[in-house]
C-alpha cells in the first residue's frame, strides 16, 4: 500500500504531505507516525502541508489527532506551510485547529518545535525536582 514517508531529523520527525490523500492513507499516516515516535523516541514532529491545496474536516481531524497522540507520547507536533486559501477555507468550514501548533514555514516551525521541546524538558526537570 502507498505510504507517506516519515524522515528523521535529529530528535525530530519530518513528514511532508505531497499527495491528495484518500482517507485510508491519512489513517495510515496517523498510525505510522505514532509508531515511529515511540520507536525513535522523537521529541518533536513537523508536518509540512505546503503542498496540499485542501484541508477538509477529515484531514483537519487527522492533524488534531496526530498532535494529541504525539503529545501523549511526550513529543510536540507543529504543522507548517498552510496555504492562505486553505486557512480561509478551514475557518469558514468551522475548523479552528485550536489544539494544533502551527507555523508559517519549515524554518520557523523547527524553531517553534525546539522551543516547545525545551519547555517540555524544563517542565520535566521541575517535576523531578519536586519529587
Amino acid at each position, binding site marked *: 500500500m502507498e505510504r507517506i514517508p516519515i524522515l528523521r531529523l535529529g530528535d525530530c520527525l519530518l513528514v511532508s504531505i505531497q499527495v*491528495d*490523500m*484518500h482517507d485510508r492513507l491519512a489513517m495510515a499516516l496517523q498510525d505510522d507516525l505514532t509508531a515511529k515516535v515511540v520507536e525513535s523516541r522523537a521529541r518533536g514532529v513537523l508536518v509540512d502541508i505546503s503542498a496540499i491545496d485542501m484541508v477538509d*474536516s477529515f484531514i483537519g481531524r487527522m492533524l488534531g489527532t496526530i498532535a494529541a497522540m504525539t503529545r501523549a507520547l511526550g513529543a510536540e507536533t507543529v504543522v507548517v506551510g498552510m496555504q492562505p486559501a486553505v486557512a480561509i477555507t478551514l475557518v469558514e468550514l*468551522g475548523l479552528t485547529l485550536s489544539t494544533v501548533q502551527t507555523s508559517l514555514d519549515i524554518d520557523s516551525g523547527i524553531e517553534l518545535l525546539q522551543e516547545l521541546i525545551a519547555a517540555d524538558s524544563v517542565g520535566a526537570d521541575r517535576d523531578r525536582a519536586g519529587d
Partner: protein
Amino acid sequence: MIAPAIEELPLDSEHDVVSVRQTVRTAMSEMGFGLVDRTKMVTAASELARNIMDYADCGGVVRVEQLSEGLRVGLRLTFVDEGPGIADVDLALTDGYSSGDGLGLGLSGARRLVNEFDIVSSPGRGTTVTVTRWR
C-alpha cells in the same frame, strides 16, 4: 462562452472522493475561478462526497455541471444517494451535530463554502444535496 458540460461520477470508494476533488479542481481552473473559490468548492465537494461514503451503504453519484447564465458562470454539484436519508435536516445542518463519528461540520461547513445550497432528504429514500458556486 463555456459550452454546457455535464459529467457524472460514481461515489463508491474513498478513491472516488479524491477523483471528485480532482474533477472539481480542474473544472474550476478551466472556468477561470480564483484560488480561494476553488479551494472552498473542492473542500465542500470533499465533505459532501465523504458523507455519502460514511452514511449511504450503496454509495451514490455526483453530477458536475458547468453553468452559464448571462455574463456569469458557475459550477453546480449534485450529490445523490439512496441511503437511509435524514430524518431531521435542520438538526443535521447544525454545527457539531453528527449521527456518526465525524466532527459534525460536513453539511453545515459545506453550506458556508458555497453560494447556493439545497438539500432534499427523506428517511428511507435517500438524500440529494445541490451546491453551486458562481464566479
